[in-house]
């Protein structure tokens, strides 16, 4: 036993020595070090010029948590996650169930629904800022048909988030739909067939056969939706830039607006560290609790 294992270990070691250092080096250089640097900067009051000197300890974190706009941004992130899970995923799943079947036009429709996902975020944002324009936009034209004055959705703190959520659902449901379609098509049709033979109705097949079989995909889709929501930035900028009155910031757009644009590198780093902690905690706990049967 020992004799047979030795050459195998040696080979493994060579591979390790050969392939690990470059990966480790790149990972350290571009992932670990910037994270460490951000953590280091977050203890300073620093405008990005020269080297940071003014050590203020945990003050930046206090400033972040004291900031009303950060609270709103955090809530908005949660809101985006909730809407992604409760509106976007069911929508994507039901469309996938319809479009996974082969019928005339199915491919066309899949393409059509997937198209928004291909569009660049900035372009999407710009297009929708025109759609929402209360004077010249598509929305205004629709309202005018009914002789009404269109609201400026993006210009009011009460409706700005609603407008952004609509764009998010519109843009990303196609992606999740495609995930589900791929999973549905890879599914063993015999199981459904067998259930039907056993007299299960449509709802029972969906509830007890299809959805359980889709579970890994649903988990993956939820994971993407949550991580995507946490990272959301490039749709916000062209639409509202976080305004009006900081009502539509996400944590990332908050970081950019209050850290980068104001040359408060220490403050921005603190936001970055907080975001990092949230993402890492989420990613690891999600993997541990929900995705462990997949390995």
């Amino acid at each position: 036993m020992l004799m047979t294992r030795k050459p195998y270990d040696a080979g493994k070691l060579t591979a390790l020595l050969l392939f690990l250092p470059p990966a480790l080096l790149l990972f350290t250089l571009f992932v670990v070090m910037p994270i460490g640097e951000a953590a280091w900067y977050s203890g300073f009051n620093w405008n990005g010029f020269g080297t940071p000197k003014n050590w203020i300890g945990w003050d930046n974190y206090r400033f972040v948590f004291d900031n009303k706009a950060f609270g709103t941004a955090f809530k908005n992130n949660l809101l985006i996650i909730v809407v992604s899970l409760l509106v976007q995923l069911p929508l994507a799943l039901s469309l996938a169930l319809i479009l996974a079947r082969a019928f005339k036009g199915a491919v066309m429709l899949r393409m059509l629904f997937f198209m928004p996902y291909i569009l660049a975020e900035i372009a999407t944002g710009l297009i929708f800022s025109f759609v929402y324009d209360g004077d010249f936009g598509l929305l205004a034209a629709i309202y005018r048909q009914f002789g009404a004055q269109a609201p400026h959705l993006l210009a009011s703190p009460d409706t700005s988030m609603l407008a952004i959520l609509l764009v998010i659902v519109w843009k990303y449901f196609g992606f999740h739909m495609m995930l589900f379609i791929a999973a549905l098509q890879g599914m063993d049709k015999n199981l459904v067939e067998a259930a039907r033979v056993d007299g299960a109705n449509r709802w029972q097949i969906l509830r007890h056969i299809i959805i359980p079989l889709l579970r890994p995909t649903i988990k993956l889709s939820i994971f993407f939706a949550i991580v995507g929501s946490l990272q959301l930035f490039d749709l916000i900028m062209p639409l509202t830039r976080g305004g009006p009155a900081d009502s539509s910031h996400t944590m990332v757009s908050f970081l950019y607006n209050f850290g980068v644009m104001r040359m408060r590198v220490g403050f921005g780093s603190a936001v970055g560290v907080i975001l990092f902690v949230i993402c890492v905690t989420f990613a690891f706990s999600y993997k541990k609790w929900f995705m462990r049967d997949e390995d």
Partner: protein
Amino acid sequence: MTVFRRLLGSAVGLACLAGTAWADTTLKWLHIEVNPNQVKIWEEVARDFEAKNPGVKIEMQFLENEAYKAKAPTLLQSKDRPHIIYSWAGGVLKAQVEAGVLEDITAQVTPHKDQLSASAVKAFTVDGKIYGLPHTVSQVGFMYNKELFAKAGVDGTKIATWDDLLGAVKKLKDANVTPIVVGGADKWPLHFYWTHLAVRLGGKAGFDAAMKGENGGFEGDVFQKSGEHFKQLVDLQPFQQGFLGFKNPQAVGAFGDGKGAMILAISSFYHTQRALAADKTGLSDDKVGWFNFPTVAGGKGEASDTLGGVNGWLVTKGAPKEAAEFVKFFISDAVQKRLAQGNFLIPTFKGAESGLGSPFMRNIAQNIAASKYHQNFYDQDLGPSVGRVVNDATAELAGGTMTPKQAAKAIQDAFKQGN
């Protein structure tokens, strides 16, 4: 193979030789100007300088305004930094000086600077050292549409006090005219109201005291009152529908389209309202009027005090000597007159304002010349961090989500946090 290698070698050698012969020095000039007509003239000026100084090549680089502000700290600390950069003076300039990324060009510009407006040069002087030169100044005031004013029976030339302005807004509303358009999404167009009220209410002394933290700093009486006055205006709902979603170019365009009677403008909007109007012609000279920001009863500021920008060019650390020479060339009588003739800017070179083509711009030049206290834009003067809080707070005042007291407190808190 060897033949190929030799050929390649000689080609590279030649290219190097040609390179050195072509330009001993390349000046990298970073600007943020978006008006193509003005950029065209600037390019000609650069070519002109190259012709007069053999061996010097000028490379123009462009960054969009906000992108430039975001990138500047990283850009300036790289080895490949541009040699000449755009600046609004103020707090950002001070931070750059402290970081040691700028070149002291006092000696090089010393006789030349005396020909420029002294107050503008002072904006580019930190602790007695000059780091750049200003090429233009601007004033903030009300631009109005004469036709819409006539429709509502308002005389723009008679608006002198804050109450006059409020009265005019009411009359315009009664006549179903949108009194004021503003680019609220950009926030800084709204911060003009609050800051100009502070200029009127506190004068130079009020601002200086706040900077020293006296009289409650920016939370003091002057600044709370500024907020209260601004709120009087906001309560009349004078702005176009959805103003918090309008970016400045949209608002200026709307004014050019005749969709609003007034806009609190930087004097350079005189040009941009035409370019940004839907029909690209905007309002003609005879339809546009100007009145200075109204005075406030009991205010300590002079009526002649102005709020506006001072813009110019900084020379960065380690830039070749020619950089300062080019800045001087760019801000010389001939070039300044030429830009003034196109009404692109209010020149800083003394006497060049005689080149100003339009009476509108000449009036602005006179206002600035007569001003004893020209306050730089707060969002520049207070530095990027506090300045943006001023913008945020005034936008919230306009949106009704903050009270004057809260706004003043937010600004003072940011000032104390400092940067």
